[in-house]
């Protein structure tokens, strides 16, 4: 709102907002801080906030004991793989719905969205059984497919809203100049769609990274990503606060950083374009 406000008022706003912001962020900050403490300092009474002996010991212990890198790689593989696979399938679909709409386009879009509403637990056993039959249980390939499928509606939907914003006249002009479908896609549409595609990738990567129903239920050792790695800390290692914090920090750091870039896309992606 472009209204003149007094400096006092602004200062008050700033103070209140920062206090609330820090309060909400505090659990994350506390986890990061604790990860640099020794176990004794981590449970010290009263709690120590900043003035402790900073150490990186926990990080090396976590890596040594639980092979963090393997889980990290699984997370990257699952989130990255499902995102790329999803895009390959979704880009053509969203393209055709945005630029060659038919009477049924709206129904198809809404129907795709509705598949997202299906509660995972309702279809847990069939998927579980299918995974056993196909030998996909605890395999990365199987999970990439599942994660891709659960996020496909969001990818299609987001891409569709982005593609819709590209003026159709440009494509028509290209067609008049004799561009083939392939040329149109490659030289006109793709460059213009790259920002939208990048945002979609980002949000989808985050969603897949944090997915914790299928990753917990369909993995054991080999394909387990960071969600499962952290869940394995639930006891008794979870009582070692410093190590738990180090493990947690490593699990959330990449996404926190990516998340900061994706604030705007978050709204569009998660409300299916209903709030812009």
């Amino acid at each position, binding site marked *: 709102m472009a*209204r003149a406000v007094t400096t006092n008022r602004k200062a008050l706003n700033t103070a209140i907002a920062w206090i609330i912001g820090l309060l909400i962020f505090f659990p994350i900050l506390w986890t990061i801080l604790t990860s640099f403490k020794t176990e004794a300092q981590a449970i010290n009474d009263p709690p120590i906030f900043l003035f402790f002996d900073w150490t990186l010991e926990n990080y090396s212990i976590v890596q040594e004991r639980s092979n963090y890198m393997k889980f990290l790689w699984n997370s990257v593989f699952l989130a990255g793989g499902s995102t790329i696979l999803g895009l390959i399938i979704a880009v*053509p679909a969203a393209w055709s719905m945005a630029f060659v709409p038919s009477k049924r386009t709206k129904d198809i879009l809404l129907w795709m969205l509705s598949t997202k509403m299906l509660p*995972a637990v309702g279809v847990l056993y069939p998927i579980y059984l299918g995974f056993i039959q196909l030998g996909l249980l605890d395999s990365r390939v199987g999970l990439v497919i599942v994660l891709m499928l659960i996020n496909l509606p969001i990818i299609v939907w987001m891409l569709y809203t982005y593609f819709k914003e590209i003026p159709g006249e440009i494509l028509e002009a290209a067609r008049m100049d004799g561009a083939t479908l392939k040329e149109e896609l490659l030289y006109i549409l793709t460059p213009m769609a790259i920002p939208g595609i990048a945002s979609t990738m980002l949000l989808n990567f985050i969603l897949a990274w944090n997915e914790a129903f299928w990753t917990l239920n369909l993995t054991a050792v080999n394909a387990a990503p960071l969600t499962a790695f952290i869940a394995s800390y639930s006891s008794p290692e979870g009582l070692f606060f410093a190590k738990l914090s180090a493990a947690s920090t490593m699990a959330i750091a990449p996404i926190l950083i990516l998340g900061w870039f994706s604030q705007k896309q978050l709204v569009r992606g998660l409300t299916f374009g209903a709030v812009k």
Partner: protein
Amino acid sequence: MATQHSRSAARLMMAPAVVLLLGWMLVPLIMTLFFSFKKYLPLRGDSLSNGLDWVGFENYARFINSSSFWPSVYTTLIIVGGVLVITVVLGIVLALLLDQPMWGQGVVRILVIAPFFVMPTVSALVWKNMFMDPVNGLLAHLWKFFGAEPVQWLSQNSLESIVMIVSWQWLPFATLILLTAVQSLDSEQLEAAEMDGAPYRKRFIYIILPHLARAITIVILIQTIFLLSIFAEIFVTTGGAFGTKTLTYLIFQRVLESQNVGLGSAGGVYAIILANIVAIFLMRIVGKNLDA
């Protein structure tokens, strides 16, 4: 505009997504429906290849009549309702606050949104151990500092604790969407009302709230769908003990822990019906928006 050629090409490009999603939806759904009418206990030697006994609606009746069904419905309602109330109310307050002029707005926004990016297992575990542990948790220290008896969070106030954890995770989502809506508010209208002497309370009730109505509805619907199926938060904190077994968790236990697939599948069908009731309303709103 579109030629016949491009139409058929479009259909072809849409096909993979449609076929995959159709399969992903129909195959498991039909299997769950099928299992829900069967006696299927894999641990007692039942298997698909040996053929399963048809039991009609017995699983459906047993699922509803079991002693854990109604408590799980109650738990689900408390968690979903509690989180919705907290996140929507605080979300509106935060959105209005963040819309005010201030220094470092971008940074505050990031701080507020951050919890959304924390994976559910991490937030559940960090809250459970580092904050809610009755001996070493930070909240216990805080209580002791004020001379109070530390709260036994997850064992004695388990539902409240889970509502707290989940609210912390979802508050950023509500805030962000409501903030987007607040920012699209026409400030001239507000200024006119202010000049006419309308106090803030009246401006809020008659201008801001009606403007936010749609965004609030969307927040409620989308969160409900996600909240109905929260899993990791309960899996990691209480494992369904201390009265925190939601419908989702109950079905998970029936299917994978006690391996009573028929019974669990009947529960799954109930969950699907429940989610669909919410989904219909959401789809209406989204669909309307698509025409605009």
